[in-house]
């Protein structure tokens, strides 16, 4: 087999050009549910990549102030399940920082229970926060994206939206609905230069884990180990790994991903989303 070794032309490791290091310079991003967990990591990553980030939480207050300050962003309080609040927020953001061109729909609410006995109002609150709330936020930002002539939307779904989960009917239904919403909007909006995709994280190391641990009567570490035992890669995910995928899917240099759901779960689901 003939071989040859040309002179090394590769740049030194860890020194890619500035543009690819900070692909979101000039981007104005709205991240919902961004004071903790995955949303917070996404806000931090987009800010590190150069974006000005509007940090959303359900209510204003010191928690939101701190989270926005941490990423050099602006506070964007609104309950995503309240249509009027969402539209009023997006209008205010438009005046304050300009039209949003990157939207990350991450805000979610979750309770579990047997379908037959799950409190009816609470069941619908899960669906109306996760699925209807996402609908409200996307509808609110679309006119601004059209004005800017570009848009990237990432919907944070869940592994359970792909696989289903016992005792999580409302959550799984809402997250599966988000995948189908993503598929439809992927088709509907791509011709306008607005690309909609989703991520479906598996078990991720966020404050939600503490809730799971308490429900299971385990310590936080025991809970992590228990989940990790069922994951091929042998550990649970980190919020930064989900954030990296969101940064990738919102990169304006990539225009051929539309309506897709990227699964980030350590190899667990073995499904096509």
């Amino acid at each position, binding site marked *: 087999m003939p071989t040859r070794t040309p002179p090394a032309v*590769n740049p030194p490791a860890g020194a890619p050009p500035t543009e690819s290091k900070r692909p979101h310079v000039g981007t104005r991003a709205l991240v919902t549910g961004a004071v903790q967990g995955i949303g917070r990591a996404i806000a931090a990553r987009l800010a590190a990549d150069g974006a000005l980030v509007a940090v959303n939480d359900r209510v204003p207050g010191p928690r939101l102030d701190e989270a926005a300050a941490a990423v050099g962003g602006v506070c964007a309080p609104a309950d995503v399940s309240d249509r009027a609040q969402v539209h009023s927020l997006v209008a205010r953001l438009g005046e304050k920082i300009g039209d949003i061109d990157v939207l990350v729909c991450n805000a979610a609410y979750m309770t579990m229970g047997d379908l037959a006995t799950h409190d009816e109002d609470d069941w619908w609150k899960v669906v109306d926060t996760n699925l209807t709330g996402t609908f409200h936020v996307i509808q609110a930002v679309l006119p601004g994206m059209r004005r800017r002539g570009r848009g990237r939307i990432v919907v944070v779904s869940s592994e359970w939206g792909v696989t289903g989960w016992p005792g999580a009917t409302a959550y799984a239904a809402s997250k599966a609905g988000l995948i189908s919403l993503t598929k439809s909007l992927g088709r509907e909006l791509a011709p306008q230069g607005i690309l909609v995709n989703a991520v479906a994280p598996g078990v991720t190391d966020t404050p939600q884990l503490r809730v799971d641990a308490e429900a299971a009567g385990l310590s936080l570490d025991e809970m992590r180990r228990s989940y990790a035992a069922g994951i091929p890669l042998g550990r649970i995910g980190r919020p930064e790994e989900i954030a990296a995928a969101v940064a990738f899917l919102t990169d304006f240099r990539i225009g051929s991903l539309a309506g897709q759901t990227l699964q980030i779960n350590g190899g667990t689901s073995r499904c096509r989303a």
Partner: protein
Amino acid sequence: MRSAFLEPSRRRTALVTGVASGIGAACAATLAQAGWLVAGLDLHNSSGESTALALTGDVSDPASVREAVRLTESRLGPVDALVTAAGHYEATAVDDITPEQWTRMLRVHLGGLVNPVRALLPGMTERGGGSIVAITSELAIGGGDDGAHYAAAKGAVIGTVRSLAAETAARGIRVNAVAPGPTDTPLLAPDSPWRAPAYLETLPARRLARAEEIASCVLFLLDEGTFCTGEVLSPNSGAVI
């Protein structure tokens, strides 16, 4: 554990197949740009602009692949990543596919994954880490006209990726796939139906994917998709959703 993923001081090495043109060439360029040391393998001579080592060989031939891996490891050191982009396409109606055409498709695409994986797995296992990305196709998911042998071979790649992912995760090895839609490369002939404006109008993104976009997906899976394994990324302009 002697994985380069845990040793930032050593430059990571990737073996990329099908490096002479199209998606393979774009992968080599993108990886080199991101700091990877790239060994390229192709049936044809490649320019070597992005590669630290350019090898000529046939991915469908296990002996040829073993020799390429041996040369890569002796010249560049342990291989941390494998990208299989070598491909072959021909439009043929199902009635007309000859046994030779069928077998060649399987040997190039499925053999093009399994042969280098078999050569590289022992080293990756010993070092406790590695990352593999196979280029498959949108046609493996959605099927299409006049390419049953191509779709079968690319579908087999996805099945292999998912199984390898499950089987090797505990060794710290991640295995993923990228399933491009029609991409603007030499594999698409100038008169290809996928270049026809009427077809492009049916795509939500209204255009072919670019080889650089496919390469960005590969780079994401190697560098940042550290909790992704057994996953298939689909930069296909919305052809299959």
